[in-house]
């Protein structure tokens, strides 16, 4: 059952990334290109998502537990440490270079583009390497 709901969530997520064109790197780079012809689309995607997810999470997390599992699994750390900032910076550089972050890159596999496949393969390789250095 957990798999069925995760599949549903994935489908909605992938459809949402497609209809908002976030799977198109040109759109993402257009957003990051603040000195060029700025494309606000990504801000509308994130802003729209936050406007609903914020209140929705507040309501959901008031419950003692989720419907299908024993407990909510949430990150508990609140400190800002070096790996967090260094990781986010490396991710930002890669994001700016390719115009793909993990969600859109995976969704874009549906296009069958070999370049996207290459990106995803490198991404998994990068995750593997980082996993060797962090517990």
């Amino acid at each position: 059952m957990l798999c069925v709901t995760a599949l549903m969530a994935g489908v909605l997520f992938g459809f949402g990334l497609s209809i908002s064109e976030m799977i198109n790197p040109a759109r993402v780079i257009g957003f990051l290109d603040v000195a060029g012809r700025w494309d606000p689309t990504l801000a509308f995607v994130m802003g729209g998502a936050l406007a609903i997810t914020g209140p929705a999470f507040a309501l959901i997390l008031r419950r003692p537990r989720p419907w299908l599992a024993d407990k909510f699994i949430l990150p508990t750390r609140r400190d800002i440490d070096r790996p967090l900032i260094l990781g986010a910076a490396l991710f930002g550089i890669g994001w700016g270079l390719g115009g793909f972050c993990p969600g859109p890159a995976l969704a874009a596999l549906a296009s069958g583009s070999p370049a996207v496949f290459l990106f995803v393969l490198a991404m998994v390789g990068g995750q593997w390497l980082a996993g060797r250095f962090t517990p």
Partner: protein
Amino acid sequence: MSEPNLLGGLIGGALISVAASILMLLNGRIAGVSGILGGVFWAISGVERFWRVAFVIGLVGGAAIYSFAAGGLKIELAASNLILLMAGFLVGMGTRLGSGCTSGHGVCGLARRSPRSLAATATFMLFGALTVFVMRHVSF
């Protein structure tokens, strides 16, 4: 360069929040794609792996459904294969080291008002913009 797609952006954002809310309300999990992808390969148990595999299949499937309905996906690559290889590697390393990406930190983390997610989101936005600035507006 096409016109901004603001309506598509808002609809997409709404769908993403429904997806994140489903995963939280029913499964009690954060919809962070980099973490979910990592768990596909390095999960500690089969149960932990299966739902993540299902989510990733759904992610690709959702884009495939859209592609079928809209008659294709528009993907304009921003870089050569070599740059994409480097970019993918940096995105993979960075999201694992930094415990999240645009969905986990940028949407779910900010929605929970996590200070770590706010710091991470500000950092990857800044470095993303700086990188694009150097690539587009600085001549070597």
